[in-house]
């Protein structure tokens, strides 16, 4: 086959449909592009809100914006930048770049990427629709209670936030799961972990941080929304709750969030430094170790947002030390970049200039971060403009500058053209000077006593001139953003053609020709080096002429490799789904769930849940490998099974990572239970008469049924793996009956033993734990029935065990969850 034929065939299989059909796209290049563009649009909107606020604060006594609008702006600015810009934008970079860097043709769950994108877009629009009804969230982006409880925020403001953000978070978590699986399981043959581009390492750690970091926030949001709408108690101190529970859960998310935003950006910095010094980073292992340790450390710092709530000094000393310890992995990265500058041959082009700007701003922000990690100093500057300055240095400097560097670096890959160096430098200086002019004086504003989130301030406190400078600086900063934007947009038309590998970079994405084809690689190269393009001059030619693996799409399906985790050894051919309406439809159905909750039309929510579940089942039913021969010729004599014929398909890994997030959410709920227990006065937990005797027979029988269901299901699965299809079918049926019995009995017990959850936090949190466990049992039931149907249809069985393996993992998980629910709610009070 000739090279043009090959391309035509690949394009037919991988291309998006024209016109409206573009809405069905699932390809990572399209989805990544959409994430990035949408993210930057939200950045502009969030920036506009900030400009309005800066206008108000330009002089003392400003009242052009009333307190209500200002409080909405300040809340939505933070919310937008964190949830609608920063996280989606870095995930967009990863969605777009990761497969290209690791030599894959797409992400492992293309429909999930598309569903995530639509959840993000629709969730963002839902959140912003609050402005249309004049009830935008106004309680601060960290939504402290009781300010955002029903009593003090009776409107829909807080509900818009809680529901909108939870909706958006679906996309954050699903993209994280997908990125983790992609990096670990779909690299090009020969790309061992130690040959992986550092950006992939950074994204791998980031993905796991999202998997562990977002569930506490999602759980807390759900609990607060329940408290607001049903009167169950979690945070109300008058009925056994505690407002500090919210703060713990929020910052348990909130601090890792900062690193979730920073790490991908630092990954971009590393790639830019490598490309523009024409040298692999000095101390690759150092950097990997630093990034991984940063991921771990970031979960031990959350209390440094709570130094002023009155915690014991010893615990604050611990968190203070942990917060400072983060300076070490940060320092290692900074000095690794510096060492690389010395070791290589730096070319001071625009992306590297942005990196230098980043270095100044980020190091400064890191140093003020060390300052606020110190308890006494923080007690003065906490909640002042000093902190506002600090986190803008870390987030704007640490994230936006690298992201712009990344745009200047990779946009030529996308557009096939060069950007203008002159306009780009002008934009850089406007951004850099504007940024520092805005935020450097703000440190002093805070030290002079100006609290954050004040919509106006009196004269005579020495704040006027500083605020005036900040406002002028912010307009310059906005001009810089405009200049960069113009440059980037214009270059799509006027820029010179880039040729292949414009920057002479070393990583696989620069093998790809312009315009970027949806299949990325005509054939998948074998990787022998960390910087393959620098070492193997023939690699581009070989890849494009189809001399690599999977050199065509003769099967008519989208194919990429499934490789082993550490060695990158090919294990399977992953057959991927093509464009479909399902993700968009499922996202719209999910939107109906959230809108119904928002406007208290619970029938709509119920219909939405039904439609979403139906669509997800249809989605799973149409597995891309159905009816495909079990073995595929990957070229060069490599015969591999497709993923459905193995038990190590990406789907199983994806489920495992999803369950990590799920377990974290459940863990957060158990944390809430134990936390409220420890702060409760003696003898008030549980309050009043014991609930342990009420309908205990139902709970005990339910326990036996759950144990039986889990055991029988496991026995059946093991049979399937040994080829005993009939044993599997029977066991599956028995397990389904038993789990149904469990749901019925335990549901009955919850209703009987916990009549009125709004009386006391104890009842609410026990009821929440059981709701969590029962929903999981119901999902297990659904999955079991689904697999039974797949077996009947012949799409699942001893030769095609993937779905049975996935369902089995979920059954074990939800069985374990149920046992834990028994232990915490019925066992622990007896034991302790």
């Amino acid at each position: 086959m000739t090279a043009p034929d090959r391309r035509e065939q690949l394009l037919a299989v991988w291309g998006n449909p024209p016109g409206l059909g573009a809405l069905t796209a699932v390809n990572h290049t399209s989805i990544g592009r959409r994430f990035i563009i949408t993210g930057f649009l939200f950045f502009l909107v969030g920036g506009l809100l900030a400009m309005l606020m800066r206008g108000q604060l330009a002089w003392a006594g400003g009242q052009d914006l009333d307190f209500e609008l200002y409080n909405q702006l300040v809340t939505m600015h933070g919310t937008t930048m964190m949830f609608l810009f920063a996280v989606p934008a870095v995930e967009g970079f990863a969605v777009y770049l990761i497969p290209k860097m690791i030599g894959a043709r797409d992400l492992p769950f293309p429909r999930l990427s598309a569903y995530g994108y639509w959840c993000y877009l629709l969730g963002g629009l839902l959140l912003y629709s609050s402005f249309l009804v004049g009830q935008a969230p106004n309680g601060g982006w960290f939504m402290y209670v009781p300010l955002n409880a029903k009593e003090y925020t009776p409107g829909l403001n807080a509900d818009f936030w809680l529901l909108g953000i939870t909706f958006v978070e679906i996309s954050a978590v699903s993209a994280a799961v997908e990125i983790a699986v992609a990096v670990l399981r779909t690299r090009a043959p020969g790309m061992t972990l130690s040959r992986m581009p550092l950006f992939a390492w950074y994204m791998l750690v980031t993905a796991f941080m999202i998997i562990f970091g977002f569930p506490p926030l999602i759980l807390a949001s759900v609990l607060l929304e329940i408290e607001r709408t049903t009167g169950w108690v979690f945070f109300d101190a008058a009925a056994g709750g505690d407002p500090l529970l919210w703060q713990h859960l929020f910052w348990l998310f909130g601090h890792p969030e900062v690193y979730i935003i920073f790490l991908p950006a630092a990954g971009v910095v590393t790639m830019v430094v490598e490309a523009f010094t024409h040298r692999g980073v000095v101390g690759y292992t150092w950097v990997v170790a630093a990034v991984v340790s940063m991921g771990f450390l970031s979960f031990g710092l959350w209390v440094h947002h709570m130094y002023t709530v009155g915690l014991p000094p010893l615990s604050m000393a611990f968190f203070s030390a942990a917060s400072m310890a983060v300076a070490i992995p940060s320092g290692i990265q900074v000095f690794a970049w510096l060492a690389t500058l010395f070791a290589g041959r730096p070319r001071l082009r625009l992306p590297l200039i942005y990196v230098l700007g980043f270095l100044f701003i980020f190091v400064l922000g890191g140093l003020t971060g060390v300052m606020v990690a110190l308890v006494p100093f923080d007690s003065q500057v906490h909640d002042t403009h000093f902190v506002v300055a600090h986190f803008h240095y870390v987030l704007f400097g640490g994230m936006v500058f690298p992201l712009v560097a990344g745009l200047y670096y990779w946009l030529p890959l996308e557009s096939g053209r060069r950007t203008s160096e002159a306009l780009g430098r002008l934009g850089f200086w406007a951004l850099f000077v504007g940024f520092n002019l805005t935020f450097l004086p703000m440190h002093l504003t805070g030290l002079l006593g100006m609290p954050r989130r004040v919509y106006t301030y009196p004269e005579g406190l020495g704040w006027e001139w500083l605020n005036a400078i900040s406002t002028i600086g912010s307009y310059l900063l906005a001009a810089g953003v405009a200049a960069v934007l113009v440059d980037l947009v214009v270059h799509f038309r006027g820029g010179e053609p880039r040729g292949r590998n414009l920057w002479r970079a070393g990583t696989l994405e620069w093998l790809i020709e312009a315009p970027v084809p949806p299949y990325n690689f005509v054939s998948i190269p074998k990787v022998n080096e960390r910087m393959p393009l620098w070492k193997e001059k023939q690699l581009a030619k070989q890849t494009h002429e189809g001399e690599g693996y999977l050199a065509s799409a003769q099967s008519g399906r989208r194919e990429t490799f499934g490789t082993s985790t550490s060695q990158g050894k090919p294990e399977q051919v992953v057959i991927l789904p093509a464009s479909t309406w399902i993700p968009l439809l499922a996202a719209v159905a999910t939107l109906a769930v959230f809108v119904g909750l928002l406007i208290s039309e619970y029938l709509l929510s119920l219909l939405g849940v039904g439609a979403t579940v139906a669509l997800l089942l249809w989605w799973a039913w149409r597995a891309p490998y159905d009816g495909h021969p079990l073995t595929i010729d990957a070229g060069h004599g490599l015969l591999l099974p497709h993923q459905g014929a193995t038990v190590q398909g990406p789907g199983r890994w994806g489920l495992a990572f999803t369950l990590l997030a799920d377990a974290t959410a459940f863990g957060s709920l158990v944390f809430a239970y134990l936390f409220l227990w420890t702060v409760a006065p003696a003898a008030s937990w549980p309050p009043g008469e014991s609930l342990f005797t009420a309908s205990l027979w139902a709970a005990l029988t339910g326990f036996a049924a759950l144990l039986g269901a889990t055991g029988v299901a496991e026995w059946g699965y093991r049979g399937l793996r040994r080829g005993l299809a009939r044993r599997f079918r029977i066991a599956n049926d028995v397990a389904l009956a038993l789990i149904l019995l469990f749901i019925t009995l335990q549901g009955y017990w919850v209703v009987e033993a916990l009549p009125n959850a709004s009386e006391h936090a104890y009842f609410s949190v026990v009821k929440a734990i059981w709701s969590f466990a029962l929903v999981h049992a119901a999902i297990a039931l659904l999955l079991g029935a689904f697999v039974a149907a797949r077996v009947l249809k012949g799409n699942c069985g001893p030769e095609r065990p993937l779905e049975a393996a996935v369902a089995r993992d979920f059954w074990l998980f939800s069985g374990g969850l149920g046992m834990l629910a028994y232990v915490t709610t019925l066992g622990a009070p007896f034991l302790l």
Partner: protein
Amino acid sequence: MKRRVPALLPLLATGCGGVQSTLEPHGPGAESIAVMWWVMLVGSAIVLGLVMVLAWMGVDRRRRPALGTTHLIAAGGLLLPAVTLTVLLFYGLGPGAAPHLSGQDGEPLRVEVIGHRWFWEVRYPGANGLAVTANEIHIPVGRPVEFQLHTADVIHSFWVPNLGGKMDMIPGRTNRLILRADRPGRYRGQCAEFCGAQHARMAFWVVAQPQEEFARWLALQRTPARPAEDAAARRGWNRFVELGCIECHTIRGTQADGRIGPDLTHVASRSHIAAGTLPTSRESFARWITDNQRVKPGNRMEDFSHIPPEVVRELVAFLVTLQ
């Protein structure tokens, strides 16, 4: 920052004479933190300078030392922060660095402060009776004061930058904060935790005065309100009852015992009204009564814009007698 700091220094020296500045300390709590700031500022400037000089040398291709090895990473990324931060940690958490959290010598004066949307209730318990005031806290110079902090509604944060760090007021809890003023003076405090509509106008004044002066003030605050004597003031009191002001405000010694708004027993003795929003004067009282939703929008008091001017004058005549 390397280049900007020298330019800022003179400004700092002259520009921070603020009554709400952490850099002009008037007590041991604020003092040690201000020193901590200057120490860390110098240290940070050195580190930032070092990094930027290295970066500059790194991109300058003409003359470069051979620093491109992992030794640089070990020295700059591991050794430098490990050593400096250990020192800093012992300095920052060592004894004496945070007297506002750990207690101070001497028997402290106890003052209870309750955060309300959007004012501060201040209570002085004592064997000689309870004194209640609002938005103005008098303390004796040189004696530690233990503030017992709680809230009537949402979370607030009690902060007097000239004297020390802040402490949150959280539903269901009582937090303690010990501060001491070493010099007589008037120090401004402000709510630091976002608390809704008028978070921006929730200020108060701390008045530090010599012991005898303070004792006189406290004795006066403990007394019930002196009954209004002249006719206009008496009519004002009647209006105060008729208009329902007594539902929300307490005036000790009278039938007014509302708890929603601030205690007004000695309101005219305070320097400001409405939590630092207006200086106390006849005009301010009048403006507040008729126009408070413009002065401090969203505050929880009704706007009495509909009442005739002579009634307002009578009310003001009564209020100014509450010395």
